[in-house]
C-alpha cells in the first residue's frame, strides 16, 4: 500500500510540471497584455514598460516560469497583480462553491444512475430497460447550456419555485444555499447519470452471465441479494473510474453551468482571469486542478483495491 502511495506521488511531479508549463506557454501566446489591462488603453509606452519591469514581465518566458515555480515550492502561489488578492485566498473563496456543486452533481448522478442500472441489468431488453436506455441516450446528446436554460425556464420562470441566479454562501443560510444550488446541481446531475447508468448496466449484464451468479442462484439466494451483493461489487470498477474522471473534471469547476447560474466558482474565476490576463490566478487554478485530478485518480486506484481483493493482493 505504501508503495502505491509513493508511486502516485512520484507520478504527480511530472504531471504538475507539464500542465503548469503548458498553461504558462499558452497563456502568454494569447494576444493582450496585463499592463495594458491594468493601466487602460490610454497608458503611455513608458508606463507600460515600467509596469512590465516591476511585474517581471520583461523577462524571457522560461525565467518567468522558473520564478513562479520557485515561489510555489516555497509556498508562495503569488498575488494577483490586478486585485492584490493572493491566489490562495482567491481560490479558497471560490473552491467551496465548486466543491458543493461537484458533490451535488455526483451524488445526484449516482442516486439516479446506479438504481436504474441495476434494474435495467436485472431484465435486459425489457420495456423498462429500453425506455431507460433510450432516455439516457437522449440525455447524453443534450448540451449542458440547453438543459440549464430549460430548467430555468420551467422551474424559475414558469413555476417560480426555485431561483435561477441567487448564490448564498452555505455558512450564511443553508436552505437558501441549497435552493440556489438546486438548479445548477440538477443540471449537472442530469448530465452525469446517463454515463453512470450505461457503464454500470453493461458491466452488470456481463457479470450476471458469470458462473458464480448461477452458483448464487443455485444456493437459493434472493434476486435482491444476487444483484446487490454478488453482482454489483465485481461490476463497479469501470463505474468508479468514470465517476473519478467526472470528479476530476468538475474540480476545475463547471465553467458553463457556473456562468449561466452566476455561481462564484473556480470555473468562472479561471475564465475571468483569462479575460483579464490575470495569469497568476490562472496558474494557481490550473495547479489546483492538476493536483486534484491526480489525487482523485489515486483514490480511484485505492478503491479498486477495496472492491477487488485480487488487486489488493497484486494478482490481477
Amino acid at each position, binding site marked *: 500500500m505504501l508503495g502505491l502511495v509513493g508511486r502516485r506521488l512520484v507520478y504527480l511531479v511530472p504531471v504538475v510540471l507539464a500542465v503548469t508549463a503548458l498553461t504558462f506557454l499558452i497563456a502568454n501566446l494569447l494576444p493582450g497584455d496585463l499592463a495594458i489591462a491594468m493601466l487602460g488603453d490610454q497608458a503611455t509606452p513608458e508606463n507600460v514598460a515600467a509596469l512590465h519591469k516591476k511585474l517581471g514581465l520583461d523577462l524571457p518566458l522560461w525565467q518567468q516560469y522558473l520564478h513562479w515555480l520557485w515561489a510555489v515550492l516555497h509556498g508562495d502561489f503569488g498575488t494577483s497583480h490586478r486585485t492584490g488578492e493572493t491566489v490562495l485566498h482567491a481560490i479558497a473563496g471560490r473552491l467551496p462553491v465548486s466543491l458543493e456543486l461537484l458533490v451535488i452533481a455526483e451524488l445526484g448522478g449516482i442516486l439516479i444512475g446506479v438504481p436504474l442500472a441495476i434494474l435495467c441489468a436485472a431484465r435486459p431488453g425489457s420495456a423498462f430497460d429500453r425506455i431507460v436506455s433510450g432516455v439516457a441516450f437522449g440525455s447524453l446528446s443534450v448540451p449542458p447550456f440547453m438543459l440549464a436554460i430549460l430548467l430555468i425556464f420551467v422551474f424559475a420562470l414558469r413555476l417560480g419555485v426555485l431561483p435561477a441566479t441567487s448564490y448564498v454562501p452555505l455558512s450564511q443560510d443553508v436552505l437558501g444555499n441549497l435552493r440556489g444550488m438546486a438548479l445548477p446541481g440538477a443540471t449537472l446531475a442530469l448530465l452525469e447519470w446517463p454515463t453512470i447508468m450505461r457503464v454500470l448496466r453493461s458491466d452488470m449484464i456481463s457479470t450476471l452471465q458469470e*458462473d458464480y451468479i*448461477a*452458483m448464487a442462484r*443455485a*444456493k437459493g*439466494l434472493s434476486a435482491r*441479494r444476487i444483484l446487490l451483493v454478488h453482482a454489483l461489487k465485481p461490476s463497479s470498477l469501470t463505474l468508479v473510474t468514470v465517476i473519478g474522471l467526472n470528479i476530476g473534471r468538475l474540480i476545475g469547476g463547471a465553467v458553463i453551468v457556473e456562468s449561466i447560474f452566476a455561481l462564484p466558482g473556480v470555473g468562472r474565476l479561471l475564465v475571468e482571469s483569462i479575460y483579464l490576463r490575470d495569469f497568476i490566478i490562472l496558474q494557481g487554478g490550473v495547479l489546483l486542478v492538476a493536483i486534484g485530478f491526480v489525487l482523485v485518480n489515486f483514490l480511484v486506484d485505492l478503491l479498486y483495491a477495496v472492491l477487488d481483493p485480487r488487486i489488493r493482493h497484486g494478482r490481477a
Partner: protein
Amino acid sequence: MSGTPLLEIEDLTVDLPTDRGPLRAVSGVSLSLAPSRSLGIVGESGSGKTMLSRAVLRLLPAGARLGGTARFEGRDLFRLSPRALRRLRGRELAVVFQDPMTSLNPVLTIGGQIAEALREHLGLAPRAAMARAVALLAEVGIPEPERRARQYPHQLSGGMRQRVAIAIALSCEPRLLIADEPTTALDVTVQAQILDLLARERQMRQMAMILITHDLGIVAGRTDEVAVMYAGRIVEQAPTRALFKHMRSPYAEALLAAIPRLHAPPHTRLAAIAGSPPDPTRPAPGCPFSPRCRYARERCRSEAPALSAENGGHQYACWFPLPDRAAAEA
C-alpha cells in the same frame, strides 16, 4: 428401489433458442432416483447431460423451453413459485459446478460464501453461520480452516476451491447433490481425492447424488446406477455393475473404449469415436448414433429405437444390441 422416488423425471425435453431455430438439447428423458442413491450420467460434450441437470435446478439460459415433468419428493419442479424454488435450491437440492475457478465469487470471502447459504436457509446468526462454515471447511479437508475462511477464492488452488464449492453444496444438508463434471477442470492427481470426498460425504449424509461426467471410468464403482446419454437421449441405463458386466449399446461400448488405458504399451493410438455428434438443430430420422456406429444397418438409419422395457433394471435403445459376451463364451 422402494418407496417414492426422490427425483422423478418424465419425458423431459429442453429446447434452447439459437440463431438457426430451437435446438433440442434434451429429448424425452425419463429418470428416477430413490433417496440416498447415486446415479451417474455419462455422455460426451453436447449430449445434453448438463442441460438435463440445469433443467432440474431450473437454471437454464433465458429463452429455454421445458417440456415433460420433473418431480422432487412429489413436488413439480417446473410449477414451483419463485419463492418455493428458492427454498428448495441450496436447501434440499444442491449443485457443484464444473469449474471452481469461475464458480466462486472473486470478491467475497470463502467463509462468507458458505455462511450466506446457512443464513438464508437455516436462519443462523452471522457468528454461528461463520462457525459452521469453518467446521464445513475442515470437514471437506481444508487445512487451517479459520484462516482460509477469511481468504478470497484467488488465494486457493483449484482443488481447494472445488472443496469449498462442495462445502457450500453440503452446508444445508441437501437431500440431492448434483455434481456437474466436478473434476473435469482439475489436475488428475486431485480428481480422485475430490471424487472420494464426494462419495464419503454421500455415504455419511445418506444423500442422493447425480454425478455427471464424460468419463465412464469415473462412475465405475462410484455410483449405484448409470445412464448413458447421446444426442439428448438416454441410450442405455442400468445398475452400474450390470452395465459394466454387459454393455448392450454400441455407444456405451465406444465410450468405454475411448478411456486411455494405463497399462497399454507406450505410443498406443488413443481410441476415439469417429465422426462427431449429430447437429441437434437438424434432427435426422433413425438412430442418432447410426452415422458413427460400426454395427449400424439399414433399419438403424431409418427408424429410431426407443428405450427397451425394463429388464432387471437394464434398459437400452438399440435395434441390434451387443451380444452377451459372457454368455457367448460359456
